[in-house]
């Protein structure tokens, strides 16, 4: 294991996850063709300690499935997932158990992610009991309080005996975060952690995550909100129909987008200042069904700068001509033509 590999917390390479679409008895008898949802079609990225990577995209782009596959809640079809240098793609449930301490997931709905019958203490204590950490009630109590403080719920006494229905949405989310922190994880996967919270509360939770990041935690954030990603993430990966179409430092991707999809998104996201609104470049139609993925570049039917070859060539992630930093990549043969004329063909997936 080289020093570079030890450095990386999470490494995902060529991840492919598909779901079969149930045909039912009628479908089977009528011999309807078996269809698959191409949820994740070759996704690769890395997360280093102290780095927050945001997977951004609209619904159906595969970002949530990617997150679920990484934490092994869903099985991938192919590809590699490495955590701290060790491959975990096909580990059995038993071998995965100790890993569950190091990779924690934070869910979108703070109103549903806590058992309504558990006090805050019970919820945060549960991971300790499951993994048999901290024998003895006192030691567990101390850890619970420590986790509460780390999650910004101070003084802990005010919250520790409460039930979820006595807490606000933001507080509940902090309890869920505390329950993850109590195991001292190295990687947090946050699935839309603030989208169900009020605006005035979001910044607090995001700052909390930012603080954890500064302490060395790696964070994979799933979000549909480009503005949030731009502000809090180190790197952004924009997903469309199961692929990463653009990735790079957050500021760079947002200010100098190279993929036509990202460009359109940037113009369309409303800005705070009423006088600084960009003319929205509204794409026609809606994102196609992940069951029927367009040939060649999956974005070409809606792309404003598509050329003839775009319907044949499936681009890989390359450094765009106008990129300002070396780690900015886009999958577009127009803005980021690869070094050779023969781009990766139909089976291609973006790879570093």
């Amino acid at each position, binding site marked *: 294991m080289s020093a570079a590999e030890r450095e990386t917390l999470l490494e995902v390479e060529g991840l492919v996850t598909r779901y079969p679409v149930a045909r039912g008895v009628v479908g089977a008898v009528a011999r309807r063709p078996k269809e698959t949802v191409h949820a994740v079609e070759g996704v690769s990225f890395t997360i280093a300690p102290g780095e927050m990577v945001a997977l951004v995209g*609209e*619904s*159906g782009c595969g970002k949530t499935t990617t997150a679920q596959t990484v*934490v092994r*809640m869903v099985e991938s079809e192919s590809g590699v997932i490495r955590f701290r240098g060790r491959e975990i793609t096909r580990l059995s449930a038993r071998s995965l*158990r100790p890993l*569950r*301490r190091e990779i*924690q*997931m934070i*869910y*979108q*709905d703070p*109103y*549903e*992610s*806590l*058992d*309504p*019958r558990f006090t805050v203490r019970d919820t945060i204590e*549960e*991971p300790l009991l*499951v*993994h048999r950490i901290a024998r003895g009630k006192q030691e567990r109590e101390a850890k619970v309080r420590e986790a509460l403080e780390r999650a910004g719920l101070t003084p802990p006494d005010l919250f520790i005996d409460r*039930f*979820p*229905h006595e807490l606000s*949405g933001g507080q509940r989310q902090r309890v*869920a975060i505390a*329950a993850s922190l109590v*195991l001292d994880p190295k990687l947090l996967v946050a699935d*839309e952690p603030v*989208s*169900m*919270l*009020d605006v005035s509360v979001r910044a607090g939770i995001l700052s909390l995550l930012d603080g954890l990041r500064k302490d060395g935690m790696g964070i994979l954030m799933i979000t*549909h909100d480009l503005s949030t990603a731009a502000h809090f993430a180190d790197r952004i990966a924009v997903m469309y129909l199961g692929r990463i179409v653009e990735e790079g430092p957050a500021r760079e991707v947002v200010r100098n987008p190279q993929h036509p999809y990202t460009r359109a998104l940037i113009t369309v996201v409303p800005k705070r200042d009423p006088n600084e609104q960009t003319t929205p470049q509204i794409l026609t139609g*809606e*994102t196609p069904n992940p069951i029927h993925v367009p040939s060649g570049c999956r974005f070409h039917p809606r792309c404003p700068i598509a050329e003839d070859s775009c319907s044949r060539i499936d681009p890989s992630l390359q450094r765009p001509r106008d990129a300002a930093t070396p780690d900015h990549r886009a999958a577009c043969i127009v803005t980021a033509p690869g070094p050779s004329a023969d781009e990766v063909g139909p089976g291609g997936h973006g790879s570093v």
Partner: protein
Amino acid sequence: MTTSTTVARGEAGFEGSPEFTSGRRGFIVTTLRDQPQAIIGLMVVVMFILIAIFAPLIATYSIHAKTGPIYQAPSSTHWLGTDDGGVDMFSLLVYGSRVSLEVGFAAALVAMLIGGTVGVVSGFFGGWVDVLLMRITDIFLVIPDLPLIIVVAAIFGRHLINIIIIIGIIYWTSTARLVRAQVKSVRERVYVKRARSIGAGNRRLVVKHVLPQVAPLLIANTVLTIALAVFLETYITFLGLGDPSTVSWGKLIENSFLGNAVLNNAWWAIVPPGVAVTVVILACTMVGQSMEDALNPRLKVGHLAVRRFRLRPLHGQLDNE
């Protein structure tokens, strides 16, 4: 294409609905407080239980001896008269409560244990286990009650324990279905998924997270099953398939028919046990139904009631507060 974002709850000025959070005791207390018929029902059931427990102290005569004339009408010495064997009806009624309630509660317990277990296992594990268990449940659902009872009585004899088991077997299926549905829904809740992603094993998930959500429903269902069991016991015994060595309300009714109470105009031999059974069933149903109602998420605003807002005259001019 939609995202799954929604605005945080609490909009429109309505207060959030109280959730069942403080454990089983909280749920029962809430039910009783909000629905007075539950209190009445509970009091009646408790009264009968006490009668059954303290039967020897309450009964006025022995039920094994002839203590009065045959079919004597109610009098000051025999409050409910006597039956065709000269035995005091009131004492018979009191002692009869023991068997009736015993069988009712025990059979409901059997149904709850079998149905609850099948429902939890089926709902939680899904897959082929679920399919197998549900097909078994279907088989039991299809078996007709009366022929089964007759066959069991013929083969295994008319013992009380057999009656209890048979009634339990007849009623466990509906409990199983109910529990299975609930378990399936709870299993999909985010907090269960989160517990699983922390690494919790199936045992912990079921015991700590699923069962507490299922228990109130199970209790409500069991209370209703008690009512059904009491009735079925009465029915079975009335048909002559009951345990001949015990006295239950059904037995009293059976006896009254066998002893030609109608011809003798001895209403006191027929009516009291029938009334007793009815009252117990009613009371259990009231309690059980109230519990089930309390468990249903109540709609905060009935949309049929929209537009019936009231007007209030403005106090003072503009907002000077």
